[in-house]
C-alpha cells in the first residue's frame, strides 16, 4: 500500500509539473505543544523551512491523528502535505514534488554538486532521525518521562498503552533495519558528532557565506536546520544529543541565522 503510494507520487509529480502551486496547500502535523515527538518535530521543521526557503505559501494544520492519516514513508511518516488533490509525506517526496514546479531552491547547483548535496541530505536525515529515535525510545528515562506520555496523550487510557506499545515496536524495528539497535549511547554520540563534523566542514568550505552552498539556500540547509534546531531546543531528561551539537559553534550560529531569517522564534539562547 505504501509503495504504491511512492510510485503514485512519482507519476503524479510528472503529471503535475505544469500546474501552478495550489493556494490552499496544507501541511499536517501533530500538536506541537502537547503531542509531537523529537524526530517528528525535526522532520516537520525541516519541511517548513524548505517551503519557506522556496517562498511557497502553505497553511499548517495540527491534527491528533496526523500520523495515521499520512500515506506512509520510510521514517517518521510526518509531516505530510496536501497540495490540490495530491498528498506527499516526508522530506524527500515533498522536495521531489516541489522540484517539478520550477520554484525549487537548489537549481543553481550543477549536477555533481547536486548529487553530492543529495547524499548529504540523506546522511543528515538518517543519522539525526536515528539518533532522535534512539534517545526517544531506547533511553528508559526519556521514554518514560517524555515519549510515552506525549505519544499517549490524545488517546484514552487502555488505547494509549496499546498505541505506545506499537509505536515503540515500530521505532525499534526502524533502528534494527538501520543497524542501530545494538549501539550504546556513546556510539550514538560518536555517530552524531561525526555527522556534525561533516556538516561543519561543509559549512566552512565557504566561510563568508551563510549557507552550505554559497549565497543561496538549498535542501541541505533546510534539513540540517530542522534537525539541529529541534535537537538544540527540545528539553529532554537526557540532553546528550544537544550537548554534542552545542560543541559545534558554527552549526549553532547557522541555526540562529536561519531561525532569524525565516522563523523569528528566537528560542535559541547564546
Amino acid at each position, binding site marked *: 500500500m505504501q509503495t504504491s503510494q511512492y510510485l503514485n507520487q512519482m507519476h503524479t509529480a510528472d503529471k503535475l509539473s505544469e500546474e501552478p502551486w495550489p493556494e490552499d496547500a496544507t501541511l499536517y502535523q501533530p500538536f506541537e505543544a502537547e503531542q509531537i515527538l523529537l524526530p517528528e518535530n525535526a522532520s516537520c521543521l525541516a519541511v517548513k523551512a524548505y517551503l519557506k526557503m522556496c517562498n511557497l505559501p502553505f497553511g499548517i494544520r495540527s491534527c491528533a491523528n496526523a500520523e495515521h492519516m499520512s500515506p506512509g514513508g520510510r521514517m517518521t511518516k510526518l509531516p505530510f502535505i496536501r497540495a490540490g488533490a495530491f498528498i506527499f509525506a516526508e522530506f524527500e517526496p515533498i522536495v521531489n514534488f516541489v522540484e517539478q514546479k520550477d520554484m525549487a531552491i537548489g537549481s543553481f547547483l550543477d549536477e555533481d554538486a547536486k548529487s553530492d548535496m543529495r547524499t548529504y541530505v*540523506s546522511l543528515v536525515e538518517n543519522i539525526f532521525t536515528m539518533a532522535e529515535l534512539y534517545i526517544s525510545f531506547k533511553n528508559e528515562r526519556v521514554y518514560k518521562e517524555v515519549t510515552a506520555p506525549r505519544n499517549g496523550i490524545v488517546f484514552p487510557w487502555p488505547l494509549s498503552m496499546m498505541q505506545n506499545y506499537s509505536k515503540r515496536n515500530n521505532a525499534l524495528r526502524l533502528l534494527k533495519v538501520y543497524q542501530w539497535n545494538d549501539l550504546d549511547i556513546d556510539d550514538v554520540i560518536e555517530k552524531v558528532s561525526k555527522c556534525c563534523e561533516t556538516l561543519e566542514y561543509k559549512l566552512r568550505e565557504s566561510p563568508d557565506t551563510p549557507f552550505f552552498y554559497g549565497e543561496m539556500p538549498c535542501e541541505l540547509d533546510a534539513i540540517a536546520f530542522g534537525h539541529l534546531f529541534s535537537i538544540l531546543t527540545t528539553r529532554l531528561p537526557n540532553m546528550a544529543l544537544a550537548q554534542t551539537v552545542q560543541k559545534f559553534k558554527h552549526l549553532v550560529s547557522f541555526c540562529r541565522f536561519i531561525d532569524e531569517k525565516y522563523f523569528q522564534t528566537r528560542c535559541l539562547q547564546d
Partner: protein
Amino acid sequence: MQLGSKLHVYKGEWGLPTIDFECMRVLCLLRFTRCPVDVETNSNPLRSGAGKLPYLQIGNDKFIGYKEIKRVLDLEGYPVDAKLSTKQKHLSATYTNWVFTQLHAYYHYFLYGEPNNYETTTRGLYAKRTPFPFNFYYPSTYQREACDVVQVLGGFDINDKLEKHESDYLVTNAKKCVNLLSRKLGRKVWFFGDHFSELDAIVYSYLSIISKITLPNNPLQNHIKGCQNLLNFISRISRDIFRNECYSSVKLTKSFGQSDSTLTPSERKFMETELNTKIAAGIGAALAMGVFAAWRGIYTQLTRSSTDYDGIDYEDDELDEEVLE
C-alpha cells in the same frame, strides 16, 4: 594485528570471494588495507554467537559483524580511508550511507524476499555453506531479517501474496543509484582517484553480488551490465585483490567435462556429484535390483528347481515360497 587471527566468512561462488554482503564488506576492508588475517570459509554460524557470519577471531576474542570488525581494524592501525584527504573522508562516509539507503532494500528483497529467487537460489547457497542440522534453520533467519528491511525501506510485506509485492519503486531507486555511481566513477581506478575508500568497499560488495548471482528475477543485473566502467571496476577488484579467495564451482566442473568427452550427459553429471551421493545412489541401485529380483520370483524358481526332484507335494512348496518372499 596478532598472528593467527582468523576471519570466518561464507565460501564464494561465481568467481567471487564470498556470497554474502556483510562478509564481502569485511573482506574488502581486510584486503584493501592488506591486514594479515587468515580467511576461513568452512565455518558454522552457530559459533559466531550472533547466528551469522562474518566474525573475526583474535585469540579468544570474537568480533561479530561489520561494525565491530571495522572498529578493531581502526584501532589496530588498518583504517580504510587513511590516505584520503579530509574532504574525501567526509564524502566517503556520506556516499556510503547513501548507497546503503538506496541499495539495501533492493538487495534484501531480490535475494531473500522474492519467493521464487529465494527458493531456487539463495536458500540453497546458504544451506550448502552451513553444516548439517543447521542448514535447515540459518537460511531462514536471513529471510526474516529481510522481512523487516523490506517493510521499513520498501513499505510492503514479503509474506503477502506475490501480486502485492510492489518492487518497482526499489528497482527504480536502485537504477538511479547505479547511474549516479557509474557517472561518479568515470574512468578512475577508485571512486576517489588513486586511493581506496569505504565507498569502494560497499559499492563492490553490493554490485558484485547483484551482477554475478544467477537469480531468475533480477532486474538490476542487466542494468549494471550496461555500465561498462562499473563492470571493469568489479572484475578488476575480483582479479587483483581477491586473487586467492575467489571461488567458483562451475569452473571445476567445466574442466571435468572437457576431459571426459565420451560420457553421456547423465554419466558426466554423475561424475560431478559428491561421494555420499554416489554411495547413496549405489545402495539405492542394489536395493532396487534386489527387490526387482524377489518380485520376479527368481529365488522361488531356484528353490523350486531343487525341490522338484524330491517329489514332495506342492502345498509345502507354496509355504516355502511365501516364506522366501
